[in-house]
C-alpha cells in the first residue's frame, strides 16, 4: 500500500485549495484502482460473467434457436443471478471498506490529510460503486454478446434495463454495507454481518413473507406492500415491469400492481430503491463523522 501517499499527493500539494468534489474524486479513483487490483473483484466478475453465460447457454440450447421468445428462462435466470450475486458482492465490498482501513490504521493516516470524513466516505462509495458497475456491465454485456452470437432471442433494451437496475441494486446494497462497516469494530465482524444481511434479504424475508401469506391469508395489497420493503424484490419487480410492461406474470399481486398503478410503478419502485440507496448512506455518513473511532 505504498502507492497510497503518492495517490494523495495531488490533494495535499494542490495549488488551489482542496475542494470537496476534488477530494471525493481523488479518493474515488484510488478506491476504484484498489478494487480493480484485488483478487476479489476479478473473482466476482468472473463468477458473475461465467454464471450468466451458463444461464444464457442453457436457455439458448433449449429452443431459443427457433426464435421463440417471451420472458424466457434467460431473463428469468439473469434476474435470479443478479439477485444472488450482486447483493453479496456489494454488501461485502461495502462492509470491508471502512472497517478494514480502520483495522490497518489507514483511516487515521488518510484523515490526517486535508479531507473530511464525509468526503472520504463518499469518495470510497463512488469508487466502489464504479467498480461494481464495471463488474455488472462486463458480466451482462458478455451474456448479451454471446446470446446474439448464438442467435438466441434477447432484447437489447431488456439487457440495458437489467444492467441499470442491477447497478441501482448494487448501490443500495453498498450503502447498507457502508453502514455495517461504520458500525462494526473489526472487519471480520463487518463481513460476517454483511453475509448474514445478504442471507436475510435473499432468502429470509421472502420465505417469511411466503409463510405469512399462507398462514395469515394476507390480501394481495398487503403482500405487495410488504414485499416492497425488500430491495431485492423491488429490483425484481422493477426489471419485470420495465421489460414486460406488465406484472401479470406474477399472478394476482402483480396484476393488482399493474392495474392499480400502471406506469406509476416506475415512480414507486424508483422511490423505494432511492430510499434504500440514500438512507443507509446518510446514516453511515452521520455516524462516521460524529463518533466512529479511528
Amino acid at each position, binding site marked *: 500500500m505504498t502507492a497510497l501517499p503518492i495517490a494523495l499527493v495531488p490533494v495535499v500539494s494542490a495549488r488551489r485549495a482542496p475542494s470537496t468534489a476534488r477530494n471525493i474524486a481523488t479518493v474515488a*479513483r484510488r478506491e476504484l484502482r484498489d478494487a480493480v487490483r484485488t483478487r476479489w473483484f476479478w473473482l466476482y466478475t468472473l463468477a458473475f460473467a461465467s454464471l450468466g453465460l451458463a444461464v444464457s447457454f442453457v436457455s439458448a440450447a433449449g429452443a431459443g434457436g427457433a*426464435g421463440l421468445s417471451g420472458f424466457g428462462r434467460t431473463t428469468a435466470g439473469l434476474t435470479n443471478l443478479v439477485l444472488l450475486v450482486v447483493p453479496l458482492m456489494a454488501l461485502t465490498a461495502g462492509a470491508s471498506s471502512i472497517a478494514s482501513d480502520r483495522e490497518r490504521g489507514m483511516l487515521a493516516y488518510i484523515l490526517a490529510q486535508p479531507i473530511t470524513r464525509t468526503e472520504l466516505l463518499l469518495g470510497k462509495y463512488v469508487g466502489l460503486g464504479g467498480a461494481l458497475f464495471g463488474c455488472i456491465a462486463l458480466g451482462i454485456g458478455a451474456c448479451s454478446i454471446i446470446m446474439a452470437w448464438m442467435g438466441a432471442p434477447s432484447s437489447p433494451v431488456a439487457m440495458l434495463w437489467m444492467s441499470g437496475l442491477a447497478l441501482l441494486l448494487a448501490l443500495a446494497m453498498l450503502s447498507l454495507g457502508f453502514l455495517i462497516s461504520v458500525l462494526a469494530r473489526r472487519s471480520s465482524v463487518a463481513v460476517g454481518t454483511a453475509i448474514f444481511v445478504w442471507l436475510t434479504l435473499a432468502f429470509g424475508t421472502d420465505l417469511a413473507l411466503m409463510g405469512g401469506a399462507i398462514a395469515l391469508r394476507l390480501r394481495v395489497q398487503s403482500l405487495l406492500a410488504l414485499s416492497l420493503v425488500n430491495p431485492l424484490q423491488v429490483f425484481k419487480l422493477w426489471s419485470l415491469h420495465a421489460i414486460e410492461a406488465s406484472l401479470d406474470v406474477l399472478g394476482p399481486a402483480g396484476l393488482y400492481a399493474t392495474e392499480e398503478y400502471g406506469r406509476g410503478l416506475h415512480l414507486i419502485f424508483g422511490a423505494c430503491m432511492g430510499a434504500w440507496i440514500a438512507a443507509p448512506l446518510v446514516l453511515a455518513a452521520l455516524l462516521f463523522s460524529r463518533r466512529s473511532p479511528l
Partner: protein
Amino acid sequence: MATRLVITGVIGVAALGALIGPAIGAGSSDHAPPAAPIERGASGPLGEIGRRLRDAAPGAVVEIPAGVYREHLRIDKPVRLIAVGAAIIDGGGSGDIVEITAPDVTLKGFTVRNTGIDLDKENAAIRVTAPRATIEANTLDDILFGIDLREAPDSRVTGNRIGGKPLDIARRGDGLRLWRCDRTLVEGNTIHSGRDAILWYSTGVVVRDNRGHDCRYGLHLMFSDEVTIIGNEFSRNSVGIYLMYSTGIEIVGNRLLRNRGPSGYGVGLKEADRFSVRDNLIVGNRAGVYIDGSPFTEARPGEFSANTIAYNDAGFIFLPSARGNEVVGNNLIDNIAQVSVSGRGSLEANRFWKGERGNFWSDYTGYDQDHDGVGDFVHESYTLFENLMDRRPSLRLFLFSPAQQAVEFVGRALPAIRPEPLFTDEVPLMRPVALPALAGARATRVGSLLSGAALVLAGAGLIALGGGVRR
C-alpha cells in the same frame, strides 16, 4: 311539418339535379373524371349506390366507381355489388351501413366506415340476413360491429380487413359474428381492435388463414359443431381461440401468440367434445391451453399433438374436472409452469404419453443412454413451489426469486413434504418434435450485439480508468 316538407323537397330537387347534372355534362364535354375521390350522393333516403341498386335487375353486376358515398344501403335483391377503385361507403357515425336482406348477394372491394356506436342496436358495417352472401375483400374501418351474419348459411367471408373503433373493450362490438350460418367459409380476414370474432350455432364452418389481434376473443365458438380452424394467427388478444359447448372441432396449424390478461389463454376449451388440437404454435400466453370440463362426454379423448407450447406462464392449465385428454408428441418449452391444475386435484384421468411416445419437456433432467430418442427415466412433475402456487396464486409474486429456488430445493431434498407428482410421462422425448420458426428474431440480434459491446466497453473503460491513474 311544413319545414320538413320544404327540406324534403329541396333535397329531392338537389338529388334530381345531382342525377341529371352529370348526365347532361357527360354529353356536352368529355373531360376525364377527377382522380381524387369526390363527394357523391346526397343525404336523402337513397344515395347514388342506393339508386343504382334500385334500378338494377336481380342477378345484375353493379360496378361502383371510386368516391366517397355517404349513405346507408339495403340490398334486397340478388346482385353483385363491386367496387372498381377506392369506393368508400361512409355511415356518418350512425346506424348500420350495409344491410343485405336477399340471398346470393356479393359485396366486394369496398371500404365501409364509420358506423354508429349504439351497442343496444348492434350497429354493424355489414349485416347479412339471407343465405349465400359473399363478402369479399372489403375494408371495414371505425366500426362497432364489423360483419354480422344472421341466419346466413353457405356464405363466404374472405379477405376482409376489419378494424374496430378505439373504444374501451366493453363498449366495442364484434369484428365478425356468425349466427346460425352453417357451412360458411371465413378465410384470409384480418380483424383487429374489435371485441370478439364469434360463431353462434353454426355447423360445418371453416375458419382458415385469418389474423386477429388486439381483440378480446380472437375466435370464440358457442354451440358450433364440426368447425375447422386452420392456419390462423391470433395475437395480443385476451384469448386466442375459445371453444364453448362445441363438438367436433379441429384446431390445426394456428399461431397463438401473447394472448394475455387476467384470463388470457392461447386455446381454451370449455365443455367441448371430440376435439383435436394439432401442430399449433402457442407462445407467450398467460396459459397456453386452458381445459375446463373437456372432453365433455369422453366419447373420444381430447387430442393434443405436435403443438409447440413455449414461454407461457403456464403451458397447460387443467381444471380439476378435466379428464380424458391425451397430450402426446408436443413440445413443452420453458413455460414457467409446464402443466398446472387450478386448485387442488390430480391429472390422473389425463394421459401424457401413449405407447412408446411422450412429449418433449424442456425441464426433463434424465438422459438417454440407449439412444432410442426416449429418456431412460420417467418424467414426473412435482415442484413444491408450483404446487404452492396452484393452491395460493398470490405466491406467484415470489417467482424468479432466490426464495422460490429455496422452496423447490427443499421440496426435492425432503421427500416428506414433496407433493404427489402432478402427472407422469413414462417415455419423455429427448428431442423436440419439428419446431416451427418465428420470423423477426433476427432484428434484435444486431441490437443485442451492440448493446452488449457497449456494456462491455463501459465496464472495461471504468476498470481501465481505475488502473490507469498509476503514477
